[in-house]
């Protein structure tokens, strides 16, 4: 099985500015995501999930260790055409419309205008988003801005999806549509890196689950092996991070 993402002994410390403390956030983190795998990356707030995603996207650089995307350095521009990234907080360009945002994403990924229009119409239809396509993003609700972001993430049919809390702000219909979409991608053999605080979603979608806590991978196991223990993912999560009383 070919490897899409490799994280090998990666450590990261944030330098918070001149005269300020250095903040270590990741310690010797190693994992890999194979082609066709849905990889769930869970952990409490501040555990290092967002830092990991920023490292994958080359928004920040590791102090130590090796990161490879499709066998190349994550800063390689061409491999980014194969990636679809959905940020947790949907901050986009305020004065653009969702269609223009999707056009931008499709265009930089190398799609032509006809293809973008066709795919955008399909996605707008799927997410019941037609009434909002010509509104400015700043006029949309948080949930609809998230949907605009999801459409822009999917427009170029990426091989590797990085979904950072994809259900944030969505209503029940939106959650179902996104959930069904993830399952469809899973059946199509796409590779997905998913972070979520909704453990039932992680249990539903993922093949492999990693739990990160205080910057260290505490558990990395296939879902099958985890659930064979007879415990729910929630119980396992609480055990791993040492919250037995919550359990």
């Amino acid at each position, binding site marked *: 099985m070919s490897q899409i993402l490799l994280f090998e002994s990666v450590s990261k410390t944030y330098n918070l500015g001149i005269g300020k403390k250095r903040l270590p956030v990741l310690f010797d983190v190693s994992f890999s995501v194979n082609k066709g795998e849905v990889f769930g990356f869970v952990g409490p707030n501040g555990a290092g999930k967002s830092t990991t995603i*920023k490292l994958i*996207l080359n*928004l920040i650089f590791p102090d130590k260790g090796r990161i490879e995307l499709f066998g190349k350095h994550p800063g390689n521009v061409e491999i980014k055409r194969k990636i679809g*990234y959905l940020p947790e907080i949907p901050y986009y*360009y305020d*004065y653009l419309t969702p269609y223009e945002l999707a056009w*931008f994403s499709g265009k*930089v*990924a190398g799609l032509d205008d006809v293809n973008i229009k066709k795919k955008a119409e399909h996605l707008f239809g799927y997410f019941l988003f037609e009434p909002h396509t010509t509104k400015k993003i700043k006029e949309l609700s948080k949930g609809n801005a998230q949907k605009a972001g999801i459409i822009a993430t999917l427009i170029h049919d990426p091989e590797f999806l990085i979904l950072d809390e994809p259900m944030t702000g969505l209503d029940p219909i939106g959650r179902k549509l996104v959930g069904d979409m993830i399952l469809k991608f899973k059946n199509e053999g796409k590779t997905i890196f998913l972070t979520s605080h909704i453990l039932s979603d992680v249990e539903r979608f993922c093949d492999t689950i990693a739990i990160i806590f205080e910057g260290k991978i505490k558990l990395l196991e296939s879902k099958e092996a985890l659930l064979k223990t007879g415990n729910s993912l929630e119980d396992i999560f609480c055990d791993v991070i040492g919250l037995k009383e919550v359990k």
Partner: protein
Amino acid sequence: MLSRVYPFIKITVLDGIRNRIVIGVIALSIISCLANIVITNLAAQDVGKVAIDFELSTFSIMGLFVILFACGNSLYRDIDKKTVSLAISRAISRKEYILGRFVGYLVTLIFVSFISTIIGLITLYLIKFLHPKHFEQTFGTVILAHLFAFIGFSMLLTVLILFSSLTTSSYTAILLTIMIYFIGNSIGELRDFAESLASVVAGFPESFKVMLRIVHFIVPDLGKFDLKVFAANVLPVDISFIVFSIAYAVVYCMILLLLSMKAFEKREFI
């Protein structure tokens, strides 16, 4: 490369020209022109001079507002609200991001400058029509003054982009750009004075002269691009001055963009 930068330029322009600040600046430009018509009625013999001076000053302020508030606001969202990840998590390199932002803002500036210039020229024609005896100035120099002011805006824009690449807060970048704007507008005159005989009389120390030379080398000489005096007083503009100034601006912008790209390559978006 162009296939990746072009979409980014396009969304930068669309986001820019729809920005309320840009619309506000154009509205301000119209109000200022109406004010110009009223003010020149009080100018007695110097109608042309006052009208041109007022119009070009409005144009300069308008450009400064667009750079600081529209482009600055856009960079604020990129840096502080992290919208930068929208671009660089996609197939756009960091160098292309800087180039795309610069060209996108430049096109926005061209759009606003063009509209403001047209409004300004119509106003000046109207004033000339109302006061034909006291308006001897030519419109050629006025248009050249607009073009030069625009070149000055482009230089200031590269300063803003450089500071945005270096600092972690967009407010710091905007404040530093404002500082450079004021220094840049007076550094040429200050240096000329320091080098002149009058400075000897005034007792300027040599170290101060050296410091001014260094500052003049680093900071953009924006005073060079202020042709208000030429346009208002019907003074001829030397062709070699035009060529040299444009060459200076092009080289300055290129150097600052290259420095911005270099800084941006190393920057982390925490």
